[in-house]
């Protein structure tokens, strides 16, 4: 069974970076929730999701990310992402997740929010 490892949370230039590890699916929900709590404990300028070490992402994982985005919107926190493979980047576009979460090519651009931002 695919279960996700607990993502690590670190801060960089006032931005909280959540390093996802392992599969992103239903089983990742609790761990990602905990990471989110940690990331916003001290309000960050933005939250960046790092998918570089993420594995298989399925529809239940997308639902988990949707839930996270909903909380971010309610709290008025911007979410950005980087490290997606072309395939998952395509999925984020098809599902329009990319409309609500800037997809960046690397960590630097994701942290600075310099590029990839879209109108939400």
């Amino acid at each position, binding site marked *: *069974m*695919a279960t996700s490892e607990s993502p690590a949370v670190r801060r960089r230039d006032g931005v909280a970076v959540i390093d996802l590890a392992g599969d992103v699916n239903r089983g990742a929900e609790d761990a990602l929730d905990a990471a989110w709590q940690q990331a916003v404990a001290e309000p960050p300028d933005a939250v960046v999701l790092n998918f570089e070490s993420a594995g298989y992402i*399925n*529809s239940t994982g997308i*639902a988990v990310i*949707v839930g996270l985005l*909903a909380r971010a919107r309610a709290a008025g926190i911007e979410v950005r992402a980087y490290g997606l493979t072309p*395939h998952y980047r395509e999925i984020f576009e098809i*599902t*329009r997740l990319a409309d609500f979460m800037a997809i960046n090519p690397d960590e630097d651009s994701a942290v600075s929010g310099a590029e990839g931002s879209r109108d939400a």
Partner: protein
Amino acid sequence: MTGSLTKTFRRRLRRTPAEEHAVEETPATGADEAAPIDIAPNDPLLAFLQSATGAVDVEALELDSPALAELKAAGVKLAVPLVSQGELIGVLNLGPRLSEQEYSSDDRKLLDNLAAQAAPALRVGQLVRQQQAEAITRQRFEQELEVAKLIQQNFLPKQLPELSGWQVAAYYRPAREVGGDFYDVIPLPEGKVGFVVGDVTDKGVPAALVMAATRSVLRASAQRLVNPGETLERVNEHLCPDMPEKMFVTCLYGVLDPETGHFRFANAGHDLPYVKTADGSEELRARGMPLGLMPGMPYEEKETVLQPGDSLLLHSDGIVEAHSPEREMFGFPRLKQCVADYPGGGELIDRVLSDLHAHTGPDAEQEDDITMVTLQRSPGAAHMANGAVPAAELVTEFEVPSAEGNERLAIERVVAAIDGLGIAESRLERLKTAVGEATMNAMEHGSRYREDRPVSIRVLTGDGLVRVQITDLGGARPEKEHEVPDLEAKLEGLQRPRGWGLFLIENMVDETRETSDGEHHTLELGLRLEGGNDGDE
């Protein structure tokens, strides 16, 4: 313990050297050499010596004992029992004194003291020697097993042939003691292929050597002779003169014509193969004696035609003769049922093994070698002689138990099956996502994650498409409304966050088709091998 240690005591006469050089064949009559005297386990002398408190005057002893009579005849005067920890481990036998006087009480005391000290030392020596012998036996046994395994493995096919329109799979697992199972797949003239499954009686190195010889003779004969019956006759003639006593070989040999599905076979006393047809499963019978028993044996030859969709299982007795903890054999009827119930090919092997392990229990040691060779003809794939690709060719067919996470298994097997079709990486990724989502849906909605309601998956190619059919047992479920996920609504909490599965599937592949027959529900995914639906990249 007592029996084995006290069976043979050595008779000692005067002036016997400390280190024995017993010549067991020649009885010592007045010579310096000692010969062993056997004391039978039920001889009363044994009990007497065991309980004696010291040196025993042999001439004065009256017992109905063959060993005592032998001692007397050999001129033994005194027998001093060597007892260690209450166990009689030897006897010191003495002839008359050199002075021809009787043994004095001092002599006896000295001998008793000597015996008391010698016995434990002798016992230690015996134990050390026994352990050394056991260690050597064990080591030799392990080495033999290694050699036997090496021979076996060297003579099994390194790879199986790829036959268009056919799926060939094989499984071989030796028991710890390495039986004499073997199998072989032999390329023959005119595109035909020979299939062999055999079993040599006996185990270990002797069985492995006979197996190697049989395989070589069979390979050589098969090339020269067309008919399997004749081939087995020839092999039997070759093997008979040199076959070790009480050994023989059972063997099923069949020749497949992949073009037509004709399977011509002969059987040298081997377990009958099973063929799965549209009507269930049946044995393929042909008469013949095992190889190596008697020269001049005829081998009946039979033929069957494997129709598209049929599959064949050749096997060894390690499966049917495996026992449950209650000592019930797996048995032929159960194996026959497996063939009838399960898909063919590699999937059949997996399912039989899983049933077998359920039968024997998880901790059982494998009793005998297990060998299976399966041969499956793709359904609807009448092979075309001109090499054209048939309209739809079954690439693989398998089942996954409905358990969370098993969509990964489905993905892996589909990917492995279509490896080599040259599908671009990006399109392969899409298919993987679609297969994963469709399998998850089938396991969840069709099978409610019950492992006894597996999801079956078929992969077909043809018309420039790869098609994956994912079938569950939820055919009676009400048609689900296909809600188009609206991310805004989800983010506002107006729609549940889930509900992406079908949406993803439809966006990942070129075609989808849903069918249901009241019992089964199938979702077919179609992905073009090249191009299409790639526009946004």
